[in-house]
């Protein structure tokens, strides 16, 4: 393949490639727009998963764990772990 041939090949690749990329992502754009149209927004009510997590969460916040304390103990934990050398 001489240089002219290979440049021609590259031109084809450029044309095909960019067309393809645009078609592909363009189609995806259409699909996402359709999705926006037909899929209902999340209900304001918390969903099952969020709820499951919430049931665990509130105790700690309600009971007033100081967040800096958590930070402090976290690093203590990490340091404690480091002492457990193999």
């Amino acid at each position, binding site marked *: *393949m001489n*240089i002219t041939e*290979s*440049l021609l*090949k*590259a*031109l084809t*690749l*450029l044309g*095909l*490639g*960019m067309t*393809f*990329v*645009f*078609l*592909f*992502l*363009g*189609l*995806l*754009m259409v*699909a*996402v*727009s359709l*999705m*926006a149209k037909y*899929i*209902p*927004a*999340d209900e304001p009510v918390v*969903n099952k*998963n969020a709820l499951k997590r919430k049931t665990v969460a509130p105790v700690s916040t309600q009971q007033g764990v100081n967040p800096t304390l958590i930070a402090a103990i976290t690093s203590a934990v990490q340091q404690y772990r480091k002492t457990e050398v193999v």
Partner: protein
Amino acid sequence: MDGLTTLWMETGIANFEWPDLVMIAVGSLLLYLAIVRQFEPLLLLPIGFGAILANIPNAGFTDQGGLLYYIYHIGIETGVFPLIIFMGVGALTDFGALIANPKTLLLGAAAQFGIFATLFGALLLNLIPGFDFSMADASAIAIIGGADGPTAIFLASKLAPDLLGAIAVAAYSYMALVPIIQPPIMRALTTQAEREIKMEQLRPVSKKEKIIFPLVVLFLTILFLPAATPLVGMFCLGNLMRESGVVDRLSSTSQNELINIVTIFLGLGVGSKLSAEHFLNLETLGILALGAIAFSIGTAAGLLMAKLMGKFSKTPINPLIGAAGVSAVPMAARVANKVGLEANPHNFLLMHAMGPNVAGVLGSAVAAGVLLALVG
């Protein structure tokens, strides 16, 4: 005294040849860039270290039975490591901004022009004596313009394994250099008024849309470009694990321990391809030059596309976010935000730029699929 001679004959000093030393210097330079300049340290530190290890005379790291030999052949030649990384990146990616503003997908498409334009550059270099890039080589080099490390490594391992080292180093270096390469181009191609454009706030995106999005991407890829399904498929798997909310254990492990483990070995394996014979030649310089060109063209193409779209769009589009279409997540989006803030200190483009930014990841994976299908 036999032992003394043996020991001497085993030292590095007695065995060094110039190319080894130069490559060890290259590895050290990468470590410097990673540690002091903080250029993509997660990859460049292991790559640099791997480059040093690979070029130690008599240590046999890359010979059969050596550590880097196993890492390269098991993890990189097979494509397994980049695919696992891509799964992790999928699990780390939030497509919310893109789903909220799907037009940004076109910006991610336009920025791939850098890839295909670079093909010409690589082939034209063949006119200079000393260069001899095949079409497969040229394609692997061009993918640097995709600004996506795992995609570049995956494609190079399939199309041009000998150039893998140089290509990966170029890809990660330029990704780290995004804050230096992009701003001048962005300023040159936009007016002050354009850079000041404020964009409308993004709508909230529902959980369902986020779950369905990776599946839509997957099925479009299956329909139109099966060659891209290894990359896109693993990416979508990661993203689906993230968004489905039912496998948080797996999603978390993909984003953390698994991607970390594979990153270490991927870096070492890439570094092992930085051997003197494959790196110390004119072609590497060509690859580095072409990489910079690819990045610049991609940046410009994304930007111009954004300007064009702005002409026809009902809602305002700041052209700076087009530059983020090259991917280099999240660096390019941050650069767009920063250049926007320079023009208007109250204009926060970060979230708007995340749309084209993640679209660019998909765009370059699709481009890689096209190159695999047509050249591979």
